C-alpha cells in the first residue's frame, strides 16, 4: 500500500512537473534518489549532458525522467546531479532501452570558487550562474588577523575595493568600490546584514579639527559574521536599488545551524599598538625666531617667547631661560623623543564567547563579544560590547521563521582632537611644539589654582592640558533586529516577508576646562550632542522556481519593500560656564547654544527578477525595479531601472574547451545595469534658517543653497564583462573584469556665483564616468596533505573623468583647506587637487622676489587623490598543524597635500627644514640659501635668504607641499598553530587554535613624515593630510577554543 502511494505520488509528481515530456512513450526512465548528510535533498537538478534532458528532485529527494526512444543511442552519456551549495557529482550511463536507477550523495561545498554565494536581496545563487563580479570573504579572513573595524579587514583582499582608514581607535574608515560615482553624494557601498540595510554614517569631520566617532558599520562584530559578499557595483546590486550604485557589502551572520553538542566556542585576541610612522623631526634648533629666544611670560614679553616655531638658538646646551625654569637660564638641549614619548603602547583585547545549538527543526546561537581598547593616545579608551541572538525554526514543513537581534554598546573616552585645531594635542605637540620642549616638564600642565601651565600663553594649549583637562566621552546604544517568515506554498513557490530595524542613539560630550588657551572658554565650556538614527526596512519576496522544461530552468523573484529612515539630532552647549567644573547647560554664563534637526524619508519599491538557466551552463538574468521616493517632487518621484546579465560556462558547453584537462573551468560573463538615485530630504523648497537671537531680537536668514522644485532622479548606467578561468584541476584560477559606468543627471549642490544671492544651487547636472579593470589570481603551487601553499593576488585600476558639470561651471569644490581645493573639475579625474603653484617664468624658472620663491596667484591642477592602481598579495602556507600567512597591500599613484609638511617646515620642526641652516640660523652666522630662480627681469637670483624666510614663503604654496600618495604595507601577518586533538583532548577541549598576529607591521611610502593612507575624514574630501593620528602597527596573539 505504502509503495503504491509512493509510486502514485512519483507518477503524479512527474506528471505535474513534466506535462510535456510525460506524454513521451517508448523511452527509458532514469530515476533515483539524491541525499546529503542531512537526508533527502530536494531541488537538485539531475540531467544528462549531451542529451540535455533532466529533472529536479522533489521533497523526498527523488527524481525521474524519461529519455525518448529516439535518443537511446547505446552510447555513454554523463548524468550529473547539481545543486547550489553542493559539489556536483557525475556518473556515466549507457543509453540503452530499459530503466536506469542511480542514487547520488552530494557533499556541501565550502570553497569560494564554486558554490553558493549570497547575492542582492539575500538570494542564494550558484556562483557559476552570475553574470557579474562578486567576491566573497569568509569569516576566518576577518577574525584571524583581526581589525576591530570590519571595513579595514577587507583591505587588500577584494579587487577594486579601496579602503582608507583614519588612525584613532574606533575611527572611521572609508570604503569605495571601483571609484566614485557621485560628485557630492555618498560614494560608499550599502551595508546589508541578513537582508536588512543598516546605517554606516560617520560622525563628524575629523580632518580639520574635531573628533572622529567612527563609521557606524564598524559596530559589526567580526565574530558574528559567517560570510561577506562584496557586490562590486550597480550590476551586482541593482536589486538593492538607489543606494547600491556604489555596490553593496552583504553580510550574513552566523547561525546555530549544524551545531551539535554544546556548541561553545571561545576566543581571545590581544594585540599591542605602536605608531607606524611619526614625522622626522630636526633636533638642532630650538624654539624662537631669527635665532633668538628667551622666556618671560609666553606672551611675547621675553624674546620671541610667544612664537611657537623652532627658528631659535642652536640647542647646544647654552644657558637660556625656559618656560619652566622660573627665570633661571638652563641648558638649551633638544628633546628628540618628545612626540614619540607622548604616545603610549596601545592595547586591544577582544573576547568572544558563542553558544550554538540546533536540532532538525530549530537552531539558535548566542554570542557575546567584549572589545576593550586602550589607545596609543593617553587616556583614550574604547569599549564595545556586542550581544547577538539568532535563531530559526521550522514551524511546519511549509512554514519557517528566523529572527536575530544584536545589541551593541560603545563607550569611548577622550578621543583625540585631530587636524588643525587649537585644542588638538597632536597639533600642539607636533607642529607648534618647540624642539626643546620635553615631556617631563610639559606634563606639569596645571597650576595649583587650576589654571593652565604651559610654554605659550596666547595661542596654543599645553598638549597635556588638551589630554587631561579637556576630556570628552561618547556612547552609542544600538539595536539591529530582523525577523522573517518563509512559507513554502508548493514545491516551486516560496514567499517570504521580513522586517528589520537598525536603531541607534549616540551621545557625545566635550568638556573644556577654565583656562583654555587658543579658544576663549573662560569659565569652562562644554558641548553635547545626541543623535538618533532609525532605519526600518520591510520587504517581501516571492520566489518561483518554475518546473524545468527540458534543459531550461527558470526562477522568478518578485518583491517589494518599504524603507523608512529618520534622524534626529539635539545639540546643546555653552562656551562659558558660571561655576567652573560643572558641565551642565543650567550652569551657562551666556545664552546657551541649543539646536535640533530632524529628517525623515521614505522609499517604496517593487522589483522583480527572472533567471533562465539553459542546461546549467548558460544563464541569463533580468531585473527591474521601480522606486517611489519621498525626496523627489510628486511628478518625478517614480523611477524604473532595469538590468540584464548573462553567464556562459563554456567549458561545460563545449567539452573541447577543456583543452585536454588544462582548463578545468571557463566562464564568460557580461552585464548591463541602470540604477536610479534620489535626493537628500528637503531639497525642493526654500526654508528660512533661524539664527541665534541678537539679544532678544530673533533673526532668520535666507539659506545659502537655492532649492530645486523640479529635481529628477540621477542615473548610473554601468556595464561590465568578465572572464573566469581555472586551470590544472583548479590549481590556478583567474577572475578578471572590465567595467564602464556613467552617472548622469547628478543631484549636486553646484557652487554658483554668490552674486545670485546663494552660494550653491541644487541642480540635476553633471556626469561622472569610471572605467577600469580588476582581476584576481589564485595559485596553489603546493597542495600536499601535509604542506600547502596558496597565493592570491589582486589588482585593480580605475580611471574616472568628470565629463560635464552644470552649464558654465568648471568645477564643483568638495572642500577647500588652506587655499587648496579638492574638486570635481571638468575633464579631470574625480578628486582633483587644485591650488597655487610656484610662480614661474615662460622658461619654467622659479621667479623670486627679494630672494624668495613666489606663489603664482593663478591656481591650477596640482594632482589627484585617486591611486593609479591598487592591489593585494596574500600568501598562505600550511605545514601540518602550522599555518602562516601574510598580506601585502598597495596603492600606487595619486597625490596628497601634506599640511604636516607645510606647517612643519614653516614652524621649523621637521628635519627637512634644516635646509639652509647647516651653518647657522641667521645670515650673520653663515646660514641661508640661494633659491635657484630668476628675478622678475630674468636675471639669476643671487639673494641669500634665511631658511625661516624661505619656508615661510612656501606657506600656502600648495605645489611645494604636494607629496606622493604611493605606499605599500605589510597589512597582515599570521602564524597559527592548530593544537592536535590528541593534545587538546587531554584538556577536554575539542579543538584549540593559537596564533601570533600582526597588522600594518611595515610600510614603504615615498612621502616624508606621514602615512599617506591617513584619511582626512570619511567624506569625498580626500588627498589632504593634517597632523592626522598616526596609524597603528599592531602585534599580538589569538587563542580560539572549542570545549
Amino acid at each position, binding site marked *: 500500500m505504502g509503495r503504491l502511494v509512493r509510486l502514485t505520488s512519483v507518477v503524479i509528481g512527474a506528471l505535474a512537473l513534466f506535462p510535456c515530456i510525460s506524454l513521451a512513450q517508448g523511452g527509458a526512465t532514469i530515476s533515483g534518489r539524491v541525499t546529503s548528510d542531512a537526508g533527502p535533498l530536494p531541488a537538485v537538478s539531475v540531467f544528462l549532458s549531451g542529451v540535455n534532458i533532466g529533472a529536479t528532485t522533489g521533497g523526498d529527494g527523488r527524481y525521474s525522467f524519461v529519455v525518448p526512444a529516439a535518443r537511446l543511442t547505446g552510447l555513454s552519456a554523463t548524468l550529473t546531479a547539481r545543486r547550489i551549495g553542493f559539489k556536483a557529482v557525475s556518473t556515466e550511463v549507457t543509453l540503452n532501452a530499459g530503466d536506469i536507477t542511480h542514487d547520488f550523495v552530494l557533499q556541501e561545498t565550502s570553497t569560494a570558487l564554486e558554490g553558493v554565494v549570497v547575492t542582492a536581496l539575500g538570494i542564494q545563487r550558484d556562483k557559476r550562474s552570475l553574470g557579474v563580479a562578486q567576491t566573497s570573504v569568509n569569516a576566518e579572513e576577518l577574525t584571524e588577523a583581526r581589525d576591530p573595524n570590519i571595513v579595514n579587514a577587507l583591505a587588500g583582499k577584494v579587487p577594486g575595493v579601496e579602503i582608507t582608514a583614519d588612525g584613532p581607535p574606533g575611527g572611521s574608515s572609508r570604503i569605495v568600490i571601483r571609484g566614485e560615482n557621485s560628485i557630492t553624494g555618498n560614494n560608499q557601498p550599502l551595508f546589508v546584514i541578513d537582508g536588512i540595510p543598516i546605517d554606516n554614517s560617520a560622525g563628524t569631520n575629523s580632518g580639520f579639527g574635531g573628533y572622529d566617532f567612527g563609521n557606524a558599520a564598524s559596530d559589526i562584530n567580526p565574530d558574528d559574521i559567517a560570510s561577506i559578499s562584496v557586490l562590486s557595483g550597480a550590476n551586482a546590486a541593482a536589486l538593492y536599488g538607489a543606494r547600491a550604485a556604489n555596490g553593496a557589502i552583504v553580510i550574513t551572520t552566523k547561525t546555530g545551524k549544524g551545531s551539535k553538542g554544546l556548541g561553545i566556542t571561545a576566543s581571545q585576541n590581544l594585540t599591542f599598538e605602536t605608531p607606524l610612522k611619526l614625522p622626522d623631526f630636526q633636533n638642532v634648533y630650538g624654539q624662537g625666531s631669527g635665532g633668538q629666544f628667551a622666556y618671560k611670560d609666553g606672551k611675547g614679553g621675553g624674546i620671541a617667547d610667544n612664537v611657537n616655531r623652532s627658528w631659535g638658538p642652536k640647542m647646544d646646551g647654552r644657558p637660556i631661560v625656559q618656560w619652566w625654569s622660573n627665570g633661571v637660564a638652563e641648558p638649551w638641549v633638544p628633546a628628540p623623543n618628545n612626540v614619540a614619548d607622548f604616545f603610549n603602547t596601545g592595547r586591544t583585547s577582544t573576547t568572544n564567547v558563542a553558544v550554538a545549538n540546533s536540532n532538525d527543526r530549530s537552531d539558535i546561537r548566542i554570542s557575546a563579544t567584549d572589545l576593550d581598547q586602550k589607545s596609543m593616545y593617553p587616556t583614550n579608551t574604547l569599549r564595545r560590547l556586542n550581544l547577538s541572538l539568532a535563531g530559526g525554526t521550522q514551524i511546519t514543513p511549509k512554514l519557517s521563521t528566523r529572527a536575530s537581534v544584536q545589541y551593541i554598546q560603545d563607550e569611548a573616552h577622550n578621543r583625540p582632537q585631530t587636524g588643525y585645531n587649537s585644542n588638538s594635542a597632536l597639533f600642539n605637540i607636533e607642529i607648534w611644539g618647540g624642539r626643546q620642549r620635553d615631556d617631563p616638564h610639559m606634563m606639569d600642565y596645571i597650576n595649583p589654582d587650576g589654571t593652565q601651565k604651559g610654554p605659550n600663553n596666547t595661542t596654543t594649549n599645553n598638549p597635556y592640558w588638551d589630554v587631561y583637562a579637556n576630556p570628552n566621552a561618547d556612547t552609542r546604544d544600538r539595536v539591529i533586529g530582523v525577523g522573517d517568515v518563509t512559507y513554502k506554498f508548493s514545491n516551486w513557490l516560496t*514567499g517570504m516577508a521580513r522586517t528589520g530595524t537598525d536603531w541607534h542613539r549616540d551621545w557625545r560630550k566635550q568638556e573644556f576646562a577654565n583656562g583654555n588657551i587658543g579658544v576663549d572658554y573662560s569659565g569652562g565650556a562644554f558641548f553635547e550632542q545626541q543623535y538618533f538614527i532609525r532605519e526600518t526596512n520591510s520587504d*517581501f519576496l*516571492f520566489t518561483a522556481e518554475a518546473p524545468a522544461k527540458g534543459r531550461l530552468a527558470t526562477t522568478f523573484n518578485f518583491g517589494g519593500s518599504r524603507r523608512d529612515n529618520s534622524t534626529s539630532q539635539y545639540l546643546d552647549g555653552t562656551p562659558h560656564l558660571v561655576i567652573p567644573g560643572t558641565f551642565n547647560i543650567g550652569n551657562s554664563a551666556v545664552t546657551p547654544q541649543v539646536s535640533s534637526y530632524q529628517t525623515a524619508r521614505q522609499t*517604496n519599491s517593487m522589483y522583480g527578477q527572472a533567471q533562465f538557466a539553459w542546461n546549467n551552463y548558460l544563464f541569463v538574468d533580468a531585473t527591474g525595479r521601480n522606486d517611489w521616493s519621498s525626496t523627489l517632487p*510628486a511628478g518625478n518621484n517614480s523611477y524604473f531601472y532595469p538590468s540584464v546579465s548573462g553567464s556562459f560556462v563554456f567549458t561545460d558547453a563545449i567539452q573541447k574547451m577543456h583543452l585536454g584537462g588544462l582548463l578545468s573551468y571557463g566562464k564568460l560573463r557580461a552585464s548591463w545595469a541602470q540604477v536610479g538615485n534620489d535626493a537628500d530630504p528637503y531639497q525642493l*523648497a526654500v526654508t528660512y534658517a533661524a539664527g541665534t537671537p541678537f539679544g532678544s531680537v530673533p*533673526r532668520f536668514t535666507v539659506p545659502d543653497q537655492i532649492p530645486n522644485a523640479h529635481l529628477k532622479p540621477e542615473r548610473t548606467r554601468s556595464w561590465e564583462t568578465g572572464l573566469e578561468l581555472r586551470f590544472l584541476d583548479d590549481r590556478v584560477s583567474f577572475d578578471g573584469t572590465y567595467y564602464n559606468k556613467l552617472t548622469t543627471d547628478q543631484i549636486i549642490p553646484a557652487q554658483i556665483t554668490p552674486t545670485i544671492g546663494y552660494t550653491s544651487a541644487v541642480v540635476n547636472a553633471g556626469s561622472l564616468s569610471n572605467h577600469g579593470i580588476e582581476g584576481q589570481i589564485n595559485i596553489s603551487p603546493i597542495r600536499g596533505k601535509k604542506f600547502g601553499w596558496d597565493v592570491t593576488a589582486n589588482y585593480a585600476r580605475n580611471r574616472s573623468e568628470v565629463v560635464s558639470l552644470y552649464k558654465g561651471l568648471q568645477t564643483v569644490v568638495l572642500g577647500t583647506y588652506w587655499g587648496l581645493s579638492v574638486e570635481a573639475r571638468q575633464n579631470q579625474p574625480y578628486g582633483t587637487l587644485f591650488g597655487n603653484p610656484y610662480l614661474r617664468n615662460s622658461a619654467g624658472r622659479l621667479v623670486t622676489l627679494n630672494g624668495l620663491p613666489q606663489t603664482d596667484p593663478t591656481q591650477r591642477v596640482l594632482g589627484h587623490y585617486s591611486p593609479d592602481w591598487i592591489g593585494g598579495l596574500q600568501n598562505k602556507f600550511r605545514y601540518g598543524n602550522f599555518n602562516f600567512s601574510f598580506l601585502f597591500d598597495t596603492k600606487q599613484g595619486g597625490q596628497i597635500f601634506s599640511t604636516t609638511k607645510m606647517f612643519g617646515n614653516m614652524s621649523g620642526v621637521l628635519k627637512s627644514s634644516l635646509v639652509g641652516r647647516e651653518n647657522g640660523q641667521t645670515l650673520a652666522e653663515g646660514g641661508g640659501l640661494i633659491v635657484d630662480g630668476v628675478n622678475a627681469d630674468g636675471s639669476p637670483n643671487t639673494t641669500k635668504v634665511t631658511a625661516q624666510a624661505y619656508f615661510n614663503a612656501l606657506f600656502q604654496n600648495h605645489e611645494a607641499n604636494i607629496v606622493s600618495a604611493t605606499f605599500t604595507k605589510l597589512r597582515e601577518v599570521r602564524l597559527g598553530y592548530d593544537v592536535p586533538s590528541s593534545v587538546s583532548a587531554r584538556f577536554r577541549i575539542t579543538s584549540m587554535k593559537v596564533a601570533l598576529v600582526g597588522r600594518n607591521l611595515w610600510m614603504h611610502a615615498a612621502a616624508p613624515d606621514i602615512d599617506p593612507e591617513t584619511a582626512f575624514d570619511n567624506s569625498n574630501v580626500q588627498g589632504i593630510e593634517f597632523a592626522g593620528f598616526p596609524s597603528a602597527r599592531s602585534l599580538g596573539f589569538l587563542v580560539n577554543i572549542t570545549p
Partner: protein
Amino acid sequence: MRLSTKISAAPLIALALFAAGCDNSGLTGVNHNPNAPPSVTPQFLFPSAVTDVVGRARGGGFDLTLTSLWAQHIAMDRFTDEDTYSIRPDNINGYWSGFYAGGLQDLATILGQNDAKTKPNLVAPALVMKSWTYGIMTDMWGDIPYSQANLSDPSRPPAYDPQKAIYAGILADLKSANTLSVAGTAGYGSADLIYNGDATKWKKFANSLRLRYALRLSKVDPATAQTEVAAAIAAGVFTSNADNALLRWPGDGTNNSPIYDNFVTRDDQHMSQTLVNTLKSLYISIGPTPADTVFDPRLAVYADPIISSPNKALYVGAPNGLQDDAAIAIGITNTSRVGVAYRGKTTPSILMAYSEVLFDEAEAAARGWAPGDAATLYNAAIQASMQYNGIADNVTAAYVASPRVAYSPSTGLQQIALQRWIALFSEGTEAYSSWRRTGVPDLQPGPAAITTPHIVARRLTYPVSEQSFNNAALQAAITAQGGALLSSRVWWDKP
C-alpha cells in the same frame, strides 16, 4: 485546519506590505521640512541682514586684517600676508560671497516682497543698508554685479555693472529712501537694531550716506558731486552724535563685538606706526618744554600703551608691510594694541558717524559746493570726533587751536582729509577710500609689499572663485576697467 489558518498569515503579511509599498500618495508629506519655516516676515530678516553686513564689513577679517591695514590704522605683527598685499584667496572669496549670499540676499528678499508705497518704512531702511553695503563693495572691488545681482536664478549669472552706474544707483536709492521714510508709520520697531524704528533718523542716515558717496565723485565727476552734495545736505543730514548709525552689540557671549571676538584668540593686529606717529605729530603744547606736549588726545583712546615699558604713556606703532620674520622680530609687547574702548565686548560698530558728515560738509564748503564756513565745520567735526571718544571740550578747544591743527584755508582740504582719516578709526573701508581720493596722509608701502610698482594697493583684486563661476562677466569687467590689479585704480580714484 487550525494550522492552515495560522499559516495563512504569511501571505497576508506579504500582501499588507505590498499594499504599503504601493501607497505612494503620502510620500510628498514625508518631505515637509520640520526644521525651518517656509516663509518669514521682514522683521526677522532685517536684523539678520544688518548684523551680517556690519559684522562682516567691520569685523576682524575685512576690517582689521584688510581695510584698516591698507588705511594704515593697523599693522600686523606676524602673518603679514594682507599687510604686504598678498591676499589669501579663501578670505576674499569668503567676503565676496558673504556679502552677496548673506545680508544682501536678505535685503533683496525684503525689497522684493514689500511694496514701497504701502510699507515705506520697511523698504527705506533696506534701501539704506543695501546702499551702505554696495558702497563699501564697489569702493573695494570697482565694477561688481549690482543691477542683476541677487535675482536668485542660478541660470542667469549677473553681468558686472560699471562703478559709475552703481554710484548712480546708490545715490538714487538713498534719495528715494529719504523720500519714502515717513515718521509715525510702522517700521521694524525693535527689530531695527540701528535706530529702533525711528524713521526720521533713517532719513538722516540716508542723506548722510548720500553725502558720503556724492563727495567720492569729487575727482571723476565734480558736477554730479556738487549737485548731489548740495541736495543731500539740503535734505537733512546728521546733526549730532545722537544721530550716529551704530550697531550696538549685546556682548552676551553669542553676539559680542566682532573686534572683541577677534582679539580673544589672536594678538597679531597692532596699531600702525603711521596712525600713531600722525597722532603724536598733532600735539598740543601746554607749557614751554618738550615735556609739556600732549599728543592728539584720541591716541590714548585708540591705542593702549606698550606693555614692555613701565611708562604708561608710551605709545608705539608697528610698521606696515614687513616680512613675517621682520615683523615678529619687533615683538608684540613693544608695539601698542588697539585701545580697550575699541575692542570691548559691546564696542559698537560704526556704520557712519556725525564727525564724518561734518568733515564732508567742511570739504563741500571749502570747495564752495555747499553753504557754511569750512573752518567752523572743520572744528565742529573734530569736536564731534573728540566727543564720541569721550574727550572733554576744553581739551578739544586747545587742540583745534594748536598750530598743527588749526584750520588754514590754504591747506584746508588736506587738513580736512587728514582729520577725517583720523576720525574714521575702526572704519577701515572709509579711511582707505578717503585716503585714495585725497592722497592724505601720504601713505607709503611697507618694504615687503608685493605690489608692482611698489605702491600702496589701490583696490582689491577679484575673488578667484568668480573665475570658476562667472568668468565671462568677470573678464568683461576687467577689460572694461583696463585691468584690475592691486595697482589699478577704481573709476572714481583719479591721480
